[in-house]
């Protein structure tokens, strides 16, 4: 059975009436394989289709139908296992997990029990506290990864006393990734899921879309006295956002502590997280407790992989988020914080790299994380749908670099670009925003500003702070287009500073 050797940071303890408590967390993450067809049948996995339009006789559990394994799904499981630094089992087997439910017409789920395709591995996780600070890295052990079928979907709100069942999702391939109980705080748990999500997305084995339920977590929570004996755990099913994972763990840990300190005991049970109320509640009573009666599926032969196949998948692995982050810090001289934000997913890292290549890497990072992310956030849209492409942002930075426009004018150009005004060059041309670097023109504006404000010009010698006033006047006269360095230089000279 599980042991939990690591003792968490006292910072993460929960204060109870009887002293400190430590939370022990393990997760089972279900990641839907990004395949076109199902694990054992040729029907489509597409999301959002008409109910029961993507169901084969195999998925519907009709007698006499035989499952045939989808080789792509096997490859994705191996690829994910390698991404988790895990042992790949050349021999694995499918078992039947028996239970009776309306969304499971076979009466059993085909899963892998005794011999999973992937064994032990580990990943390093960087938890982030409520203020956005990165905490010390934590190593989370992977217990296993196995392939299994998803169930159908039950809809309870179309009739008051009936359930409507859509089997489109029935038989879609899932990778169940089981962690060791190595997490000690809600932040560590959500950072772990975030990390897994980044890995499967970088590998392309799962799209990681939590809103669609393509990546969801079952959270196992128990409490103990720091470093003491393990308590009874409860499993919270199907939590589908990072925030809900943290909320559910917080609620559940406090519920356990309250019960234990009042002299009660925790029943091992399956619970649901109610995201509206922010609490967990019993899902199944004890009498209904599952007894899955696993046995090898006689319809399926064991899965035997060649080492050469595993080697080839390994050789073709794309660069993983950790490697990209390390490279960004080394090659672009980014801080850990910047590198973390810019490698949070592949879209971000690809975008950044396209902007930063051959340009000032720090300026590229600032523009992307400040102006672009700010504008996207304000427009409630994602980088995937950004009206400003990497090429366009790069084009803007080029015009700052070659001094065609000032950094300040660039902000205006960026806004227009975000609103669909075209490329930086188009906007600069159309709006006449090209920076005035012609010293003659600037000198004329400086002379006029001094002549118009003779009093201040005289006082400037005593009070050099007035330089700022004159810079403002000249910039205004040039509609912001005068080169600020040139303006400063000429003003200093003419004011005798």
């Amino acid at each position, binding site marked *: 059975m599980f042991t939990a050797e690591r003792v968490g940071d006292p910072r993460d303890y929960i204060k109870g009436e009887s002293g400190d408590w430590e939370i022990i967390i393990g997760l089972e993450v279900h990641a839907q394989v990004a395949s076109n067809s199902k694990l054992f049948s040729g029907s489509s996995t597409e999301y959002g289709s008409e109910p*029961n339009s993507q169901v084969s*006789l195999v998925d519907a559990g009709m007698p006499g139908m035989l499952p045939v394994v989808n080789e792509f799904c096997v490859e994705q499981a191996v690829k994910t296992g390698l991404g988790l630094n895990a042992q790949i089992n050349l021999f694995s087997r499918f078992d039947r997990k028996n239970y*009776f439910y309306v969304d499971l017409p076979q009466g059993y789920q085909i899963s892998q029990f005794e011999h999973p395709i992937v064994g032990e591995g580990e990943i390093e996780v960087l938890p982030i506290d409520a203020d956005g600070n990165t905490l010390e890295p934590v190593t989370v052990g992977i217990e296993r990864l196995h392939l299994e079928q998803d169930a159908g979907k039950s809809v309870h709100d179309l009739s008051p*006393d009936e*359930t409507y*069942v859509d089997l489109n999702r029935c038989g879609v391939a899932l990778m169940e990734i089981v962690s060791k109980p190595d997490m000690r705080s809600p932040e560590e748990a959500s950072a772990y899921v975030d990390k897994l999500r980044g890995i499967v997305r970088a590998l392309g084995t799962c799209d990681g879309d939590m809103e669609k339920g393509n990546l969801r977590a079952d959270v196992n929570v128990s409490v103990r006295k720091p470093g003491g004996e393990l308590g009874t755990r409860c499993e919270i099913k199907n939590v589908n956002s990072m925030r809900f994972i943290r909320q559910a763990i917080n609620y559940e840990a406090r519920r356990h502590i309250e019960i234990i300190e009042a002299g009660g005991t925790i029943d091992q049970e399956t619970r649901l997280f109610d995201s509206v109320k922010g609490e967990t509640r019993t899902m199944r009573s004890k009498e209904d407790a599952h007894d899955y009666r696993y046995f090898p599926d006689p319809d399926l032969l064991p899965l035997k992989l060649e080492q050469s196949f595993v080697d080839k998948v390994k050789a073709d692995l794309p660069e993983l988020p950790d490697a990209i982050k390390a490279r960004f810090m080394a090659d672009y001289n980014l801080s850990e914080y910047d590198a973390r934000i810019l490698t949070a997913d592949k879209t971000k890292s690809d975008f950044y790299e396209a902007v930063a290549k051959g340009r000032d890497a720090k300026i590229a990072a600032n523009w992307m994380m400040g102006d672009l992310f700010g504008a996207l956030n304000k427009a409630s849209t994602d980088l995937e749908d950004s009206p400003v492409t990497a090429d366009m942002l790069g084009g803007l930075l080029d015009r700052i670099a070659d001094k065609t426009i000032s950094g300040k004018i660039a902000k205006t150009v960026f806004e227009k670009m975000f609103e669909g005004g075209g490329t930086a060059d188009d906007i600069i041309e159309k709006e006449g925003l090209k920076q005035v670097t012609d010293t003659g023109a600037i000198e004329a504006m400086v002379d006029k500003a001094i002549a118009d404000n003779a009093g201040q010009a005289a006082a400037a010698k005593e009070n050099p702070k007035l330089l700022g006033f004159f810079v403002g006047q000249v910039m205004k006269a040039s509609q912001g287009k005068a080169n600020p360095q040139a303006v400063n230089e000429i003003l200093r000279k003419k004011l005798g500073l």
Partner: protein
Amino acid sequence: MSDPVGAVSAEDVKKIARLSRLHVEADRLQPLADDLNGILGWIEQLNEVDVEGVEPMTSAVDMSAPMRKDEISDGGKRDEILKNAPKKDDGFFVVPRSVE
């Protein structure tokens, strides 16, 4: 024949029946348990075979699972799928409510 170790009780039969959603009348539980114990006792004879060092057999043929390409080749037969359903509506199966 004596009962094998861990003999099946009427209570076990009741539990298995419930898990399988089978209805078994109370007066049938003990006779079913007796039948099951008879079968298990007979199979118990296999324990006499020495299997020291023998790999468990996972299938009758020594080959790996044949695999298929990831191509959409099925589905799109909703009417056929729903044909035997006692109740259906708007493309869904309709069953007694499964949650409270």
